């Protein structure tokens, strides 16, 4: 169990301003290997910004983000190397429009010299099979439904063998009937032990999959608990209000 409890991501007094808008006002948190963390909160509360600061898609104004023993926002850190270890799934999938599904998945590992093309393709097919989309390898993203595109976006991240996966509202842009197929893939991933940080409005998913649920509002973590307690006995007034609206 020692390995399981190892701290993977450590966030220290993280602050982020957009001009005069203080979106994150000092976040402290530790994420351990294998944990599934779900971030919830009202829109504009900073939960997506928090997530995006973890892989420097947003550059923190101050504070520290650590992955293992490397400071992600350190001045000498090669951020590209860090990002290879952190997968990210976006609300709008962001599959590369100009490439086929296969090329979407193999582009990064091949161009970064992590895998030979053959090897990358083989792995991609294996992963595509897992999400039942191996017949779409030669299709272009535009020809696929949102649910399919998002499953492929997850596969594209997995191809890199990430140590942690960041999900930024992965089902918010989907038609309702497609939400389930994406959540199923994520649930499966969680069961396999992947470390996951998920921003979502799917409370059922949070209840079922999360180890810890964080409520973020006004740029700080207002409440943090294991899911049962978090949803059944919220202490923070804002959280009570929030849950009464979304549940």
């Amino acid at each position, binding site marked *: 169990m020692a390995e399981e409890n190892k701290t993977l991501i450590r966030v220290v007094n993280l602050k982020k301003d957009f001009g005069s808008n203080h979106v994150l006002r000092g976040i402290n948190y530790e994420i351990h290997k294998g944990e599934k963390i779900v971030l919830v909160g009202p829109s504009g509360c900073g939960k997506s910004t928090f997530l995006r600061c973890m892989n420097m898609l947003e550059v923190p104004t101050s504070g520290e983000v650590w992955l293992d023993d490397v400071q992600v926002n350190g001045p000498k850190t090669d951020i590209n190397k860090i990002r290879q270890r952190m997968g990210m799934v976006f609300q709008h999938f962001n599959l590369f429009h100009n*490439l086929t599904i296969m090329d979407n998945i193999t582009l990064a590992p091949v161009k970064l010299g992590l895998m030979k093309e053959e090897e990358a393709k083989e792995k991609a097919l294996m992963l595509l099979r897992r999400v039942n989309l191996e017949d779409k390898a030669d299709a272009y993203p535009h020809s696929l439904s949102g649910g399919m595109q998002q499953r492929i976006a997850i596969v594209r991240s997995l191809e890199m063998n990430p140590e942690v996966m960041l999900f930024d509202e992965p089902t918010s842009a989907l038609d309702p009937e497609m939400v389930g197929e994406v959540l199923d893939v994520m649930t499966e991933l969680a069961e396999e032990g992947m470390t996951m940080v998920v921003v979502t409005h799917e409370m059922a998913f949070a209840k079922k999959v999360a180890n810890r649920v964080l409520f973020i509002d006004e740029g700080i973590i207002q409440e943090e608990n294991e899911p049962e307690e978090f949803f059944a006995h919220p202490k923070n007034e804002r959280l009570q209000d929030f849950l009464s609206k979304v549940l």
Partner: protein
Amino acid sequence: MDSLGTQFYKAFIKSGRWQLYLKGLGSTLEVTLFAALLGLLLGTVACLFNMQRSRRGKRTVGSVIAYVYIDIIRGTPTMIQLLIMWNVILATSKNKVLVASLAFGINSGAYVAEIIRGGIQSVDAGQMEAGRSLGLSRMQTMQFVILPQAFKNCFPSLLNEVITLLKETSIAGVVGLSELTHASDQVSSATYQYLMPLLGAAALYFAVVKLLSFLFGLLEKKLRESDLR
């Protein structure tokens, strides 16, 4: 006044004058091709530098150079740029095609740079984020993801630029290059008639533009394969 038939005969057939037009057209195409390729290359490079910013959001040295290049070239007449190239920068060169290709290519590059900038900005920002989130560098993502989409987006504008370029080479006569317009001018001088030589040159320009549009159309269709839904 000669009859139209006689005019036609004098303008195109007598003394094998049609060959003048074809030779002129050859030079026009040669200069256009070299200039278009140079323009595309220069334009892409200038565009990437022009858009470059330091970590603090300031222009880099390369960015300033690219910006000044685009600014000056777009702000001065092509004719003057051509004359400067011919009489000053390459005053020792007698190769008119080279001089014209360079002058028009450098000129075109400034416009292409802005066309491509528009193309890049029309690509969804999420594409760059996705590339970066996988560990690809900014340049790698540009090369494999953004630029291919940007080129496709600005294809109609690039065709426009090539067409403009083709017709703009008609001023290369001022440095003595026997391109198409210059050829028709020579025939006019020899026959004292303008209608037929000018119509002939115009028809040839028009035919080339139609052909270019057709070829670009085919290419665009090929590029749009990934858009099929």
